[in-house]
């Protein structure tokens, strides 16, 4: 989905989030308004500067008068909307989703290079996930170390597709994509060739920086060292749009 193009004359609406009255531009999404106002909304696939994906479902919120939950990242604000972002029901769903993510691949924080700097890990802490009720799937995925600077470990991937989108939308290379379906999905470079043999990869490293977990890391970093920096993204995206 393309980024909302800033309109010259959008209206401003008022809405209520967690019992706070807030104003917002009509073309803003709920997650944008929440983040502006320091209302914490968890999300792993959403990143300011990238297109909306709506895959991690962690940002789901309750809207008064609507039976279904909605994802804050893909829902536009509306006049008079009343939103709850932190109910017991939502907390339960978020905990379960984080558990599902942990069990889907092989997320063992203590032996991960991103330990201490991982969005999934800190989210699990925030959501109160102290153990996982579900059995780990333990799919044996190989690690791709063929790239001279970076490494891809599918076992740490949560399929948020931030790497796919940043490579396509910001770098313009479209080296990354997803293949397979269901629980067999995995990210690939080019036509599922080893990353090191990719002819389109520019080695810019944006994918590594936006990856929320230890799936994409710099070669040669040891556990706990892999710090990621994402502040460049919204600045880059906004400059591009301004042009």
């Amino acid at each position, binding site marked *: 989905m393309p980024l909302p193009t800033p309109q010259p004359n959008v209206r401003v609406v008022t809405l209520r989030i967690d019992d706070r009255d807030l104003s917002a531009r009509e073309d803003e999404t709920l997650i944008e308004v929440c983040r502006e106002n320091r209302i914490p909304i968890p999300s792993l696939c959403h990143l300011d500067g990238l297109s909306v994906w*709506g*895959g991690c*479902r962690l940002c789901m919120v309750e809207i008064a008068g609507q039976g279904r939950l909605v994802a804050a990242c893909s829902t536009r604000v509306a006049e008079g909307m009343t939103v709850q972002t932190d109910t017991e029901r939502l907390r339960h769903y978020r905990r379960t989703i984080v558990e599902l993510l942990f069990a889907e691949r092989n997320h063992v924080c203590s032996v991960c290079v991103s330990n201490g700097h991982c969005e999934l890990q800190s989210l699990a802490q925030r959501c109160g996930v102290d153990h996982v009720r579900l*059995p780990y799937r333990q799919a044996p995925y190989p690690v791709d170390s063929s790239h001279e600077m970076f490494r891809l470990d599918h076992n740490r991937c949560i399929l948020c597709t931030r790497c796919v989108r940043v490579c396509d939308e910001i770098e313009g290379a479209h080296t990354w994509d997803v293949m397979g379906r269901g629980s067999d999905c995995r990210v690939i470079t080019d036509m599922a060739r080893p990353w090191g043999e990719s002819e389109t990869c520019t080695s810019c490293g944006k994918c590594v920086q936006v990856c929320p977990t230890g799936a994409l890391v710099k070669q040669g970093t040891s556990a706990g060292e892999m710090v990621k920096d994402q502040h460049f993204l919204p600045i880059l995206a906004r400059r591009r749009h301004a042009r």
Partner: protein
Amino acid sequence: MHLEDLAEQAAQYRNEDAHIEREVRVCVAASCQSSGSLPVLEALKSACDTQGAGSCKVKGVGCMGLCSAGPLVAVADKDCALNESVLYRDVTPDDAPDIMASVCSTPVERLRCPTDQPFFSRQQRIVLEHSGLIDPDSLRGYIAVGGYAALVRALTEMTPADVLREVTTSGLRGRGGGGYPTGLKWSTIAKMPPGQKYVVCNADEGDPGAFMDRAVLESDPHRVLEGMAIAAYAVGASKGYVYVRAEYPLAVERLETAIRKAKRAGFLGAKVADTQFAFEVEIRLGAGAFVCGEETALMASIEGLRGQPRPRPPYPAESGLWGCPTLINNVETFANIAPIIREGGDWFAAIGTEGSKGTKVFALAGKIKNTGLIEVPMGTSLRDIIEVIGGGIPDGRAFKAVQTGGPSGGCIPEAHLDIPVDYDSLKTLGTIMGSGGLIVMDETSCMVDVARFFMEFCMSESCGKCIPCRAGTWQMHALLDTLTKGRGTRADLALLEDLCDVVRATSLCGLGQTAPNPVLSTLRYFRDEYEAKLLGDA
């Protein structure tokens, strides 16, 4: 082209066949073909030539409905309906001489399939009115029975607003499963600012046990094209796509033939029926992903992208194919349009129930005597459909449950069989109408197994975009597998129910949101079967 011209053309086609008194109709839809109807057709044709029955014509026709008895052959006076014909079942090529010899004399008793049985007499055919009567590959045959008259009438005598009014009056609701009012959907797209708009026919039928759309496309493809063209005129679209599964090669082939012939005859293309209205139709093949039946995934697939859903809103009516307003309806919905324009919306609204108008095509499958395709008015009771029309359960076994709505639906036990089938009453039972698949299960079925089967289907058909559907269905399948093997505990059952809730509430699209339904509905009515399989309380 005026309506009179078309009527004249139809009369001329009928005249050309005036010397034919009797017809021998052989079903050449997929299910009869799979039981060998093509050699039967050949044998009958050569028998017809050698036995010199000059006033008799042998032709291939669409589905007659009773698929379990195929290959089916009907012998009838020209223009006679299916239930007025002499119907033969399980025909082999060796039977051809006997059948040809009997055309003008006494029927061959050993092959007869009675047509006065409820399977035929209790049906009311609107969508399937030409199915089993006309040659699906023949445009002349379609015109001869009044085909394309509704389109020509809409184009020459009605404004788009008139068409919208008739469709709204008819009360037709989307037959793909959602049951959204068709008139309302059409008007929304018609009200969007003028410009490029699209009409899409969703023929990506993927539910296990469902074959309604396939049969309609194989039996009467022009009917669907006519409905699409009328819709395009009403909403102001100029381009249409039929998104059809690649697993339906016969339907694709017949649709291609129909599009080619309709275009050549001027019912599609630049100046439809010599008016200023232009409408092109293209086929898009779906390579067998169940999720591509979901409208946003379907549109992504047509655009050449990975078939994955996206969050709604925006709905396709506002921003569909390539960002343009797009009307998406199911095959059966489009097939209902021509008769609505022909007979009027009020006529259609008089059939069915208060909230669900018209008829519904159902595919009967599973443990039932008469498997096949039926069309009955909305509001017919499930018991009527299964016990009377379907002939009940074979081998003297007892009925246990019927699943409606495929993997998105649920199972209904004996106690609720008297409920009239319509969109709203099924919902109260925790299931849905869906596209119309009915799978009947007898006492030998284990409901935990049934739930596991459907969960396996959803797991392997999940696109993998959102985590609850991708990993949730996998975990639920693993739990159901443990339970069916008798290794599950009470805690596993509780976890399963918890996951049902999470996956249903948080999944991105309809596939994930409804994936827990078979589990929830079997838990609702057959909880004792789950409990019986538990290990002792730990």
